Structures are given as C-alpha cells and as structure tokens.
C-alpha cells in the first residue's frame, strides 16, 4: 500500500529563517507517528508543511503518493490545528463548528442528511453529543479540543494530522482523545501528531520521532512497549522546561 505521508530531506523557512533543515519521515497506512521535541524544534512547522500551509523549500513531501503542491484530495486529510484561545467574533455552536469539517466532502454544496448523520457520529465519538447546541466559547479547553477533533473526523479522513492535541487538555478529555484515536486507528486511519509528551497516548504510538533544531534527532519504534522511554525520548532541556511547565498540566509528569 502507498505511504500516507512521506517527507524526504524536507526543508522549510518561516520569515526567511530556516526551520526545517532536512526532515525524513514516513507514515504508513494504519500507523500512529508522534513528533516530539522542544519548542522551536520545528514540529508544528513540519505538520503545517504536510497540510500545505507552510511552503516546502527543498526535498520531497508527498501525501498519498502525490507531491503536496499538486495534492487535491483534501477530503482524505483530517487536520486538527493548534487550539487558539481567542474567542471568535460571533458565537458558534459545537454542531456548527463540527459541521464545517464536513465541507471537505461537500465543498460548495449545501449539507444534507448524510452530512448531519456524520456530524452526529463525530460528536458521539468525542462524547459531546449532549453539548451540540452550546456555544464553543462556553467550553473548557479540553472540550474545545474535542470539538476540533470531531470537526476533523466528520470528513471521514484516511489520515488525522494533529498539532498539540494534548496542550491545555484536562485528564478526562485526554482519555476521550486516547479512546477516539484508538477507535480511528482500529478503522485503519493513520495518525501524525505533534506532542510535548506521549502521556496517555503512549500505548497507541507506533513510532516517536524526536526533532531538534529542524532535524530528526532520533526515532523510537514502539515507545509504548518500553517502559520508561517516555522521558528518554524527550530529554528535557532548560528551555523546554521553562516553556513547557506552565502549559502542561496533564497530571502525568
């Protein structure tokens, strides 16, 4: 089967500053790959390059075998961006935000009954079916993250790409997230996610790729099988500790 995501010697810049300095990475069907690394190591830029939001300046990046620049089948990709704390200008309900994910399949056509059913399914998966009519501004950080994941799932993608899905997420929501991912992996969906630490997702991860300064520092296969690798594959640096401590309240560390 074709590789879902493949990066070969990929380089990218942000504002003229090189951020990715030659990344090699592959996600095969049904695999869960975690990108780890300190702040500024290039993990977010790497996933934003994968979804075509940061231009690649060198190397080769392919999605389902096509170069990302020519890739058009975006309905196969479910993207969960970093959660922003800024409240939107106009209130929106949980259902309205999740329905936006369905546009990956409908594009400019209106949504129909099948779309509503898909939205219901995604809401059920993340345990927010009973909060569908509430404003997203009234949700906690963890619930908001679950909304963004439901939005990506509702397009029924073949790969989920998530940027820091555990950041600012309470323990309950972390568990829901792990269950949702396990369910998706069970259906053969591939997953690429940026994490600060593996946390409750550790048993699900097939490969952890540690980035440092825009390069792959090392790759750990099956980190969940080896007790104690969680700290080993994410060596705390001084800068990391400083920036990570206030944002991580997972109860795992």
């Amino acid at each position, binding site marked *: 089967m074709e590789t879902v995501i493949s990066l070969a010697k990929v380089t990218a810049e942000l504002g003229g500053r090189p*951020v990715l300095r030659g990344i090699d990475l592959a996600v095969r069907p049904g695999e869960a790959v975690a990108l780890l690394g300190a*702040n500024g*190591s*290039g*993990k*977010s*830029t790497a996933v934003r390059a994968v*979804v*075509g*939001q940061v231009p690649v300046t060198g190397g080769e990046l392919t999605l389902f075998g096509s170069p990302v620049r020519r890739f*058009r089948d*975006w*309905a196969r*990709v479910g*993207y969960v*961006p*970093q*959660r*922003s*704390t800024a409240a*939107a*200008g*106009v*209130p*929106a*309900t949980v*259902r*309205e*935000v999740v*329905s*936006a*994910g369905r*546009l*990956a399949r409908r*594009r*400019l056509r*209106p*949504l129909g009954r099948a779309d509503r059913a898909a939205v219901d399914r995604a809401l059920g998966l993340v345990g927010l079916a009973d909060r569908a*009519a*509430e*404003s997203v501004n*009234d*949700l*906690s*950080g*963890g*619930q*908001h993250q679950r909304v963004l994941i439901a*939005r990506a799932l509702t*397009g029924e993608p073949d790969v989920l790409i998530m*940027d*820091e899905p555990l*950041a*600012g997420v*309470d323990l309950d929501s972390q568990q829901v997230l792990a269950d949702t991912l396990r369910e998706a992996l069970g259906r053969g969906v591939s997953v690429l996610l940026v994490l600060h630490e593996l946390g409750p997702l550790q048993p699900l991860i097939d490969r952890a790729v540690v980035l440092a300064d825009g390069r792959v520092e090392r790759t750990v296969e099956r980190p969940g099988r080896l007790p104690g690798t969680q700290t080993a594959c994410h060596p705390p640096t001084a800068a990391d500790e400083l*920036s990570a401590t*206030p*944002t*991580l*309240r997972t109860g795992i560390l």
Partner: protein
Amino acid sequence: MLELLDYPFMQRALLAALLIGVAAPAVGIYLVQRRQALMGDGIGHVALTGVALGFLLDTSPVWMAVAVSSLGAVAMELLRSWGRARGDIALAMLFYGGMAGGVMIINLAPGGSTANLTSYLWGSVTTVSPSDITAITFLSGFVLLICLGLRRQLFAVCQDEEFARVTGLPVRTLNLLLAVTAAATVTVAMRVVGLLLVSALMVIPVVAAQQATRGFAMTLALSVAIGVLVSVSGTVTSYYVDVPPGATIVLIALGLFLLISALALPLARRRARRAAPVAPAVAKADPAVRS
C-alpha cells in the same frame, strides 16, 4: 397610521429600508466574525470616490460606487491575505484615499461641489428614485444569494481560515466574493443611512444579536430581524418627526443593543457560573511563537 404608504416616495423609502435591513447584517456578520467590523467603513469611504466619479463622468453614481468600492474591497482583501500590510493600516489608507479622492474629483466635475456628496454621506432615503430601487433590489438579491447560499462555506472561512484551506475550500475566491458582497452592500445602504453610517447597519445588529445568542445561525437570523426592525422603524419615525432617517436608524440600533445587553447580562452571568467549574483550561502558549 398607514397613510404614509399612500406616498410613492415613502413606498420606495420603506422598500429600500427593508432590503437594506436584511442585507447589511447578513454580510456584516462575517466581517464581525473575522474581526473586520470596520471594513464597511473603509469601503464606504472608497465608495465616495465612486460617487464623485459618477458625477464627473455623468453616469449613475450608484453603479460607479459599486465598481470603485468593489475594487477597493478587493485591494483590501489582497493586502490582508498577502500580509503585505497590517489589516488596520490597509484600512486606514483606504479611509483617507477614498475620502480625499471623492472630495477632489467632485470639485473637478462641472458645476460640482461637495454639496453634491451630502445626500450620499448622510443618506436621503426619502429621495430614492425608481431607478435607485431597481439597483437596490438587484444588489440586495445578489448579497442575500451569496450570504445565505454560501453561509456554511463563509462561516468556515471566517471562523478558521487555515482549517478551511486544508479542507480544500476555495478560500481565496470566497474571501474575494465576500469583499465584493460587502462593497455591494455598502453602496446599497448609502442611500438609506449614508456612507458615513453604513457600517453601523452592518455591525450593530450583529453585535446586539450576539449578546443573546449561542450559535451562528441564530445570530444571523436575529441580526437580520433587528436590522429590518431598526431600518424600517427609523424611516417611519423620520416621516412623522422631522429628523434625519440615517441617524435615527443608527441611534435606534444602538438603543436596541444597550437594551439587549442589559437583558442578557444575567443570562450570561449564569452561564459563566455554570462553565466556571470546568474552566481551569490552561492557556495555550502564544500562537505567535509556535514553531
């Protein structure tokens, strides 16, 4: 009380007010959602140059304003999306350029003076002509077709532009379409509330509605209702009392905003209290520093 409907000029005025009451909030909601509430003002200033050009070239000021303000809105959107200028600075340039251009051009027109611009600056709904009504009806129809027909797509783009791009939506095209739609709305509304108060009718009904709503569709429906209520009641008021309709409409809208805010305050407090126990949501690191 309905004897005002016997006068054709009032029939036209009320029809224009009704159409604008519907169209202005329908497009304004997307601008508010994107935090570009002042975009309507920027377009309004540019439209002034269009009106003046209409006088200079002896063509219809309304259609010239549509053309020039569409160009201005598209330029604003392109500047924003290329990130070449900060949104607020691009807006400021349009404000000044549009205003100065309008005043300069109207003085070049034969027999023209800034007095010609007054009815466009402050609105003059009771002088709407039958040909104005044709233009207003046509333009409102276009605005509503876009704003309601593509509401899910425009919502997605204005709510999370990066996500919308990754879903494969034609984000650039939708943004340009929204800019042109906003320009059309401004030129429609200029006859009723005037270019300097156009944006009020796009923004205040939306902001008033969202004090009491939790969802986007609900906010859209309520803001259109508020838009119609204030524009029609303002026009009727100006018939009975000798007050300028544009200013009356805007002041009624502001009053309604204050009223809804006051009524919704206890509701919001209760909701905040209920949400509080689950609120130890940790602030995510500043999105500007994401790597």
